[in-house]
C-alpha cells in the first residue's frame, strides 16, 4: 500500500504540490489526469524519492520514503518507474538493458539475468529484438523495453509518467496494450496520462489534479463520464474537444 499524507513541494518560489492525501491499495490501478504543471508528475516522482519534499509523508508498505534511515536504493527495487523520455541505456543491447540491474543491484548471476531479461522482453512483445540496440528500436519499442527493464526487478508497484506523450500517435496503442496486460496480471499501478479513454477503461480510480491539489477522485467511469466538479468537467471538455 502507498500512502501519501499532506504532501507539499515547491521548486523555488513555485508551489507545485499544495497538500495531497492519497492512498493506493495493492492491486489497484490509479490514473492521474490534469493539465501540465498540475503537480501529477512531480507527485509520482516523490513516491520513489526522485524528488525531495517540503512537508508531509510518503509511505510505501509502511516504509517512510523520506526518513533518513530509509535505504532508498532498496526501496526503489520494489517500485518500478517508466518515464516520458526514452531512457534505454544506448550502449547496451535490449537484453543487456534489462539484465543490468538484476545483476549489479541484486547480485544475480549473469546467465540467470540474461534468461530473466529474455523472459521479460518476450512478455512485452520484444522477443525478436533481444540483441537490438535502442537506436534500432522505435519509440514504442523503447518504451516497452523500459517497461520490461523495470519489471525485471520484480517490483510490487509500477509508476508510469506520461509514457506515451513523446510517441507518434500510431505507436501509442502498443504501449497502452502492454499496460493493460500488466493490469490483467494484477500489478499495482499509478499512471500519469493524457489518454482519457485509456484512463476510463483501464483504471479502477481516476484522480483529477488541478493547481497542485486533487480536485476530484473516484471511480474511473464516474470521474470521466460524469464529473462532479466544474473544473474536472471543463478540463475534460478541453481535452476531449
Amino acid at each position, binding site marked *: 500500500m502507498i500512502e501519501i499524507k499532506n504532501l507539499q513541494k515547491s521548486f523555488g518560489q513555485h508551489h507545485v504540490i499544495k497538500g495531497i492525501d492519497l492512498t493506493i491499495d495493492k492491486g489497484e490501478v490509479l490514473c492521474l489526469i490534469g493539465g501540465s504543471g498540475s503537480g501529477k508528475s512531480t507527485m509520482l516522482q516523490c513516491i520513489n524519492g*526522485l524528488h525531495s519534499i517540503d512537508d508531509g509523508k510518503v509511505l510505501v508498505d509502511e516504509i517512510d520514503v523520506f526518513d533518513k534511515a530509509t535505504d532508498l536504493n*532498496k526501496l526503489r527495487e520494489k517500485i518500478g518507474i517508466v*518515464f516520458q523520455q526514452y531512457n534505454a541505456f544506448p*550502449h547496451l543491447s535490449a537484453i543487456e538493458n534489462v539484465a543490468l*540491474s538484476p545483476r549489479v543491484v*541484486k547480485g544475480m548471476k549473469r546467465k540467470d539475468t540474461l534468461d530473466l531479461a529474455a523472459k521479460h522482453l518476450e512478455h512485452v512483445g520484444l522477443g525478436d529484438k533481444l540483441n537490438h540496440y535502442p537506436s534500432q528500436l522505435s519509440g514504442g519499442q523503447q518504451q516497452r523495453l523500459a517497461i520490461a527493464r523495470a519489471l525485471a526487478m520484480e517490483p510490487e508497484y509500477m509508476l508510469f509518467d506520461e509514457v506515451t506523450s513523446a510517441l507518434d500517435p500510431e505507436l501509442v496503442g502498443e504501449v497502452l496494450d502492454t499496460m493493460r496486460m500488466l493490469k490483467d496480471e494484477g500489478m499495482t499501478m499509478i499512471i500519469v496520462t493524457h489518454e482519457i479513454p485509456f484512463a476510463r477503461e483501464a483504471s479502477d480510480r481516476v484522480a483529477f489534479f488541478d493547481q497542485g491539489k486533487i480536485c476530484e477522485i473516484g471511480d474511473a467511469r464516474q470521474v470521466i463520464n460524469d464529473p462532479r466538479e466544474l473544473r474536472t468537467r471543463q478540463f475534460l471538455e478541453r481535452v476531449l474537444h
Partner: protein
Amino acid sequence: MSAYSGLSWSDLLFLLDGAGKTILLTALATLFGTVLGIALGWLRDSSRLVGWIVAPYVDVTRSVPLIIQFVLFNSFIAIAGYPLNPLWSGTIVLSSYMGVFTSEVVQAGLQAVRPELRRAGRSLGMGYWTEMRYVTAPLALRVVFPSWIGLVIGLTKDSALVGVIGYIELLRASQILINRTNEAILILLGAGLFYFIICYPISRYSQTLERKLKQ
C-alpha cells in the same frame, strides 16, 4: 672526408635512447595525468565549490606556456631544497598539464550523459557509484575517447620541452648530435620519423577502439 663523417652508428643508439626516454616520460605523464584528470573532472562536475577552488590552478596551467612551467617548477624545487632528477620534475609538470586538460574533457563527457539516463539508473535501485560505473562512465568514455587520444599525442610532442631542464629525450638528443655534426636536416628528419613512429600507432589503434566503442 665525406660530409657524413661526424655521424656514426652509436649516434643512432643515442637517438634511440632518447626516443625511449620520450616514451617513458609520455607514458608516466599519461598515466598520472589521466588519473588526476578523471578525479579533477569528476570533482569539478559534481561540486561547484571545488570548481571554484581549483579554477586558478586550471587557468594558470592552461595559459602559461609549458616550457616556462618546466623551468619555473625545476627552479622552485631546487630553491626549496628538494631538487628532483629531470625525469621526475618533467613527469610532475607534464602530469599536471595533462591532468588539467583531461579534466576538461572528462567534465564535458560527464555533461554529455543525459540526466534522464542517470535518473533511470537510480530509479532501478542503483546507488551513485553503481550507476556511475555501469551507465554514466561507459557513456562518457565513448564521448571523450577521441579527444583524450588527441591529448596523448599532443603530450608525446610536448614532452620534447622537458629538454630545457636537462632530460635527454628524443629532441634534446637530436640537438646534441646536431651541435656536434652540423647535420641538422638529416638528424631532424630522423627524429621526426621517430615521433611519427611513436604517435601514428596510437592514433591508428585509437580508431580501431573507437569503432568498437561505437557499437
